[in-house]
C-alpha cells in the first residue's frame, strides 16, 4: 500500500545552503526568491519580481527555445543563458511544487564552471558543502599541471633523441655522415626506387702524412678533404666517411657513367689541391671506384660497394689518382666452356 510520504517545511536559509543556485517561481513564472550564488552571477541587481522567461532564454533543447508555458519545460534538462549577458551555459531543471505552490528551479554550471569561477570571482563559500565542484576544480588544475609537465618532458626527450640520432649518424672528426647513416640513406633510395651512382673514394698517399707528420696532421687533412668534397658536390648528393681515409658519395639520380667518371675526376683534382697547415703543405690524391644502380636488377649497397671496391683496387694497381668504373658480375659474360 502506498502511504503518502509526509511533507516537511524547509526554511529558506537551509534551502539556500543546500541549493545556492536555486529560484522559487510563482505559478505564473514570476521569480519570488533567488539563492545567493545565483544573485552573485546575475547581471541584474535583483531577480525577484521579474519573469523567469524574461530573464532567461532556453538554448537547448532547441524545440523548447521559444516556449511560453512553464509546464512544457518540466522534467527536462535545459541549457539556459541570461538574456542580458554573455554565455554562461547554465543547466536548469524546473520542478513543480504542487498546485498553487509554484516551481523550484535549480541551476548549475556544468563544464563551464572553470571559466565561471574566474568570471564571477567565486569562492568555496559560493558552492554547497556537498557540492563536488571544488574537487572538480582541483582536478582540472592538477591535471593541467601534470599535462604541462608531461609535454615538457616529451619535448626534452624528443630533443635528446634527435641529438642522439644525430650523434650516432655522424662522424666525429669531419662532421660528415657515417657508415650507419649511409646504410639508412641507401635503404631509403632503394625503397623509393631512386637511382644513384656510388663513388667509393680512397685517399692516396695519406698514410705518409700520418707516418711523417703525426695524427694531428692526418686529422687536419681529413677535415679539409671532407670540406672539399662537400663544396664540390650538389646539395642533393650524399657525402659520408666510412673508414679511416675512405669516403662514399652518392650521386642522386645520375646514372650516366661518363658523367659519373667526370664527377669523380673533378673530385680527385679538388683533393689534389695542397692542404695548408701553418708552415707545412700536404699533398694527397685519391682513387675512386664507381658503381651505378642501373647495372643491377636488384641493387644493394653491399654488392655495389663490392664492385666499387674491385674497381678501386684496379685504380690503385694502375697508378692511383684515377677513377675506374666497376664491372658488376651480371654484365660479365658467363664462363662457359
Amino acid at each position, binding site marked *: 500500500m502506498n502511504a503518502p510520504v509526509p511533507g516537511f517545511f524547509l526554511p529558506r536559509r537551509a534551502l539556500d545552503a543546500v541549493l545556492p543556485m536555486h529560484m522559487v517561481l510563482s505559478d505564473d513564472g514570476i521569480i519570488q526568491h533567488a539563492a545567493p550564488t545565483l544573485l552573485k552571477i546575475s547581471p541584474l541587481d535583483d531577480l525577484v519580481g521579474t519573469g523567469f522567461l524574461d530573464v532567461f532564454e532556453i538554448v537547448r533543447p532547441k524545440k523548447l527555445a521559444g516556449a511560453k508555458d512553464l509546464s512544457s519545460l518540466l522534467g527536462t534538462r535545459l541549457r539556459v543563458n541570461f538574456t542580458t549577458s554573455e554565455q554562461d551555459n547554465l543547466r536548469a531543471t524546473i520542478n513543480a511544487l504542487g498546485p498553487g505552490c509554484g516551481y523550484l528551479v535549480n541551476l548549475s554550471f556544468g563544464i563551464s564552471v572553470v571559466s565561471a*569561477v*574566474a568570471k564571477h*570571482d567565486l569562492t568555496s563559500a559560493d558552492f554547497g558543502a556537498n557540492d563536488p565542484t*571544488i574537487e572538480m576544480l*582541483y582536478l582540472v*588544475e592538477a591535471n*593541467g*599541471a601534470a599535462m604541462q609537465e608531461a609535454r615538457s618532458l616529451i619535448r626534452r626527450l624528443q630533443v635528446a633523441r634527435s641529438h642522439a640520432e644525430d650523434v650516432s649518424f655522424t662522424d666525429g672528426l669531419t662532421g660528415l655522415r657515417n657508415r650507419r647513416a649511409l646504410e639508412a640513406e641507401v635503404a631509403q633510395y632503394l625503397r623509393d626506387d631512386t637511382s644513384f651512382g656510388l663513388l667509393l673514394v680512397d685517399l692516396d698517399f695519406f698514410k705518409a702524412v700520418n707516418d711523417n707528420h703525426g695524427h694531428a696532421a692526418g686529422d687536419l687533412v681529413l677535415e679539409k678533404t671532407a670540406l672539399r668534397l662537400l663544396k664540390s658536390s650538389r646539395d642533393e648528393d650524399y657525402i659520408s666517411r666510412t673508414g679511416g681515409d675512405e669516403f662514399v658519395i652518392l650521386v642522386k639520380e645520375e646514372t650516366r657513367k661518363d658523367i659519373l667518371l667526370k664527377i669523380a675526376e673533378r673530385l680527385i683534382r679538388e683533393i689534389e689541391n695542397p692542404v695548408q697547415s701553418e708552415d707545412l703543405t700536404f699533398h694527397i690524391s685519391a682513387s675512386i671506384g664507381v658503381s651505378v644502380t642501373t647495372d643491377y636488377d636488384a641493387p644493394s649497397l653491399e654488392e655495389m660497394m663490392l664492385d666499387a671496391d674491385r674497381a678501386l683496387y684496379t685504380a690503385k694497381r694502375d697508378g692511383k689518382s684515377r677513377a675506374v668504373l666497376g664491372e658488376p658480375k651480371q654484365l660479365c659474360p658467363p664462363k662457359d666452356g
Partner: protein
Amino acid sequence: MHGLINKGIQVFLTHTYGQEIWVQIADEVRLPGGSFEALLTYEEELTWNVLAVASKYLGKSEDTLLEDLGTYLVSHTTTEPVRRLLRFGGFDFADFLNSLDELPERARLAVPNLSLPELMVSEVSPDQYEIICASDFGRYGLILTGLLRAMADDYGSLCLIEWSASERGEETVSVRLLDGKHSAGRSFSLATEAAQ
C-alpha cells in the same frame, strides 16, 4: 622515490644554494643526466644520498634541509602550483589541517603513482592538533613541519608548530593554533591565472 619529490629537492637546493653546488651534488651521487625528471621514478637510495651529500656540502643537518624544503614548496613562486593545490584543501587553516588525512588521495588524483605517507589528524584539545605521520622514509614529518609553517602564513594564521619522532620512526607534528586571523595571509582565487 617519485621524481616529483626528487625534483622538488633539486629545485629547492638549486634555487636556495645555487646551480653550482647542485652540479657538485649531482656529480657525487652520479645522477644520470645531472637532473631529476618530475614524472619518472628513481631508486630510494638516490634520494638519501642526495640529502646526505647536500648536508655535507652545505654544513646543515639533513633534518634542517628537509624542513626548509617543506617551507620552500609552499612559499616559493616556482612551486606555486603546489601551494595552490594545497590551498584547495581548506578555506581556512583549521579546515586545511582537518583535510590533511585526504592529502595522499588528493595527491594521487594529480599524480597517480605518487605515494605519500598516511597522515592521521586529531584535534586533541581546542585549537591543538596532532598529525601522526608513518612512513618508510621516516622523515616526511620534517617536510610537513616546514610545509605547515608556510601554509599557516599563507592562510594568515599564527601557530606554534613542533616536530617529534618516536624510536619506532613514527613522527608527530603538533600544531597549536594561536590566532586564526592573525594577518590577511596570501590571497587565493579558485580561478587559475589561465582562466582569469
